[in-house]
């Protein structure tokens, strides 16, 4: 199997999965970003090679390694189908960067903020529906969002229940929103219920703010590279086989 070269468009980072399904560094292409960071020989079949190029991939991998550890990520990727590994790497990079940016809350701060937005919207919806009913307007039956209970992390369903046909703009989704201090304290209480450790609430300071732009930039950078690699391979039919030299990326996340 010839070593495949990773596609890095203008700066590296996480790239699209056009390359051998089992990755491939070393050879003439040089070590991948992960092996460069780890200062080890990048063998053919390196699991990180398709996703961390030798330019800026090392920087991204540094964050991943610091938070998760190379061996943990490697084990995680081995259990994921090849055509989904790019998405997994993108989300792992996002979580790692978020955790480094905010060592206390990490990406959970973003979840809290979105959760609060949902609650606010549903409250506003309930109010307007009641208002409409009071006006005695012959409107269709109100939707089933009347007076929804407040959400908590324990109420959130598993991410695996997302329908396969769902398409989302990952760069928009990964735009973190800084939640207010009071909200974080409220969510801290909910987390205690989720964690089940029974500890008494402790004081906490709000998460570091203002770092959202970098994370959004990371997400966009990753997606742009993936999009460019997908476009380059769009003309050829790629199949994912055990000996294939290319991989098919069929992300559930639509890249815009």
């Amino acid at each position, binding site marked *: 199997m010839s070593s495949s070269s990773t596609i890095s468009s203008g700066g590296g980072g996480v790239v699209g999965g056009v390359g051998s399904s089992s990755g491939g560094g070393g050879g003439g292409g040089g070590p991948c970003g992960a092996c460069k960071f780890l200062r080890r020989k990048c063998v053919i079949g390196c699991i990180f090679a398709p996703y961390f190029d030798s330019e800026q991939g090392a920087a991204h991998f540094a964050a991943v390694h610091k938070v998760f550890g190379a061996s943990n990520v490697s084990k995680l990727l081995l259990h994921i189908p090849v055509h989904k590994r790019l998405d997994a790497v993108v989300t792992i990079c996002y979580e790692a960067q978020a955790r480094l940016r905010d*060592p206390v809350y990490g990406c959970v701060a973003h979840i809290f903020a979105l959760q609060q937005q949902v609650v606010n919207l549903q409250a506003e919806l309930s109010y307007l529906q009641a208002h409409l009913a009071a006006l005695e307007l012959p409107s269709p039956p109100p939707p089933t969002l009347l007076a929804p209970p407040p959400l908590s*992390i324990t109420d959130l369903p598993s991410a695996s229940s997302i329908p396969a046909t769902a398409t*989302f703009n990952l760069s928009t989704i990964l735009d973190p929103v800084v939640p207010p201090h009071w909200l974080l304290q409220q969510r801290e209480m909910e987390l205690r219920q989720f*964690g089940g*450790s029974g500890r008494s609430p402790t004081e906490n300071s709000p998460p570091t703010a203002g770092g959202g732009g970098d994370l959004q930039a990371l997400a966009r950078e990753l997606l742009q590279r993936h999009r460019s690699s997908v476009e380059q391979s769009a003309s050829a039919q790629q199949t994912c086989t055990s000996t294939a030299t290319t991989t098919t990326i069929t992300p559930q996340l639509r890249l815009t």
Partner: protein
Amino acid sequence: MSNSTRCAACKSLRRRCPQDCTLAPYFPSTNPQRFACVHKIFGASNITKMLQQLPVHQRAVAADCISFEASSRVRDPVYGCVGIITQLHQLILVAQRELAEIQGQVALYGAQQGQEQKRMAQSQVHQYNGPIWFTTSQQDPPHLD
């Protein structure tokens, strides 16, 4: 320290649990699954380093968030927490769409109400067939001889 007082972390790692164990306050032996998730995704040494870098009063929240991220990743190895973020975005979109519809209906009702009231006011004015001289025209009233 006897086996029964070891925290979940030290129990899982099969080591002695010291009095000042960093992980003990956040991974009690009563919830071994919590540490198992965290250890699988992040690794015990990474968790220990992360918590040690934080002030003590922030470690509990951090441990809870880390635990949540780990369990999300275990449940959904591809998307982890991002899957939840995605779902929340969907909920927000749906709620915003419904909100816009309801606001449109309220505005429409308001407009209809306004038109109805205007129509009723105008019909009341036309129904009054008083003497001509009481109109706004400049005609002189007839002489009443």
